[in-house]
Every structure is written in structure tokens, then in C-alpha cells.
């Protein structure tokens, strides 16, 4: 299954996506993994929480 990814590989893709756009193939593979996995969507939500908190924190410190 060429688009199969382990949790570790999916985690690497999610971290990479924070700094650079994923290739079409990687993006599809990640979507498939997130759809089938219980853990990785949590990791994705945690990354979003951190990013939003960093932005809020920065805004709070600069206002």
C-alpha cells in the first residue's frame, strides 16, 4: 500500500507541514492516516493548540 504511513511517519509529516508545504502524495498519505488513526489526530490538535497559544501569548505580550 504505497500510501501507508506509520504514526511516526505521520508525525514527521505533521511537524514538517508547520514549516513547509507537503507534496501532494505526502498530503494524501497523511489524510488517509489521520482518518484511520486514533492517536495522530490528537497530535494534530495539540500542534494547533500550541500554535494558537503562541500567537495569543505573543499578542498579549505586545499589546
Amino acid at each position, binding site marked *: 500500500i504505497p500510501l501507508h504511513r506509520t504514526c511516526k511517519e505521520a508525525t*514527521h509529516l505533521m511537524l514538517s507541514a508547520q514549516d513547509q508545504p507537503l507534496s501532494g502524495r505526502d498530503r494524501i498519505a497523511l489524510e488517509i492516516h489521520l482518518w484511520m488513526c486514533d*492517536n495522530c489526530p490528537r497530535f494534530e490538535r495539540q500542534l494547533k493548540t500550541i500554535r494558537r*497559544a503562541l500567537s*495569543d501569548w505573543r499578542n498579549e505580550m505586545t499589546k
Partner: protein
Amino acid sequence: MHAAISLSDQLIPLRADLLRYAKLQLRNDAWAEDAVSDTLLVALEQPESFDGRSQLKTWLIGILKFKILDKFRANAREVALPESEDVNSDSDALEGLLFKADGHYATPLNEWTDPVSQLNRQEFFVILETCMDKLPAQLSRLFMMREWLELSCEDICKELKLTSTNFYVQMHRARLRLRECLDLNWYGNQ
């Protein structure tokens, strides 16, 4: 003259906030002191460039960002991690704890409560700052350049003479460590 005196009076109480902001970014007290002093000097020498459309602190932070970047440039060798720092190593201890040999999670991940309420947010910010302090200084600086100064990957690599591979690996590590620290200290205390 009166305006300058008035401005200097307004700057004094803001210095502590500026210093905290600079220390978070630079992770070096001496560089942070320098950057803040340079910022206040610009403010005192060019008070006419503050047009009053923004808060005084917002204007000062705008100047401070450039001074922080100057510090990064002046100390690029110390800011960046050496290229030889096993960038291709896949053996980060943290990943060894997170994943089994087959590449799947060793234990289920925690579901975080979103820190939406004001009280929760303040608590989350305190933990976030603590976790940033726990990151190795070089990782923390790279991370803050990307997330707070919002520099592009290309700009950071150019400023610090890093290869993109090295940069992405360091960012990967910083994000993974920060998440782990927050998981222990935010979720762990809920």
C-alpha cells in the same frame, strides 16, 4: 524638550516588559539588555517617529524586533547549531519513548483540554513560558525566530547560514520537545 522628558517617563515602566520579550527570544541576558537599551535609545532620539496611532509599547516592540534580529545576525555562529550536530540521526531519545519499533505510538496520546477560558489561558501561558525556557537555547531561538518574529524558513537559513535540512530537523525537535513538555505539565496538571 518637554515631550522628550515625558516620553522617558513613559518608557521606564515598559522596560521590564521589553526585557522579558527580548530574553524570551534571545535566551541571552546580555544580548537582551543590549537590544532593549538600543530600542530605548532609538525611541528617545526619534520621538517624532511615534505618531500615536498605536500604543507606545506596540511601537517599541516594533523597534525591538529589529534590534533582536540585529543581535541574531551579529551572533549568527552562536545562534545556530553546528552543521555536524547529527542532523540525520533518527535516534532522538524522545522519539524512542513515543514510538514502538513498528512506528506506532507506544501509549495512547492524551486529549488536551483546549485552554479557552481566560484563567486557563493565563495558566497555559505560564507553562508555555516554562517549557520554552527548558528548550536548549539554540533550539528555542530558532523556534522563536520562526513563530514570534515570523521569519520565513529561507530568511532564517540565510541569516544564520544554515542548510534547510539542518533548519527543518532543529524545528522538528523543538516542536516535539515543546509538545512533550506541555503534555507533561499542562495535561498532567489537569
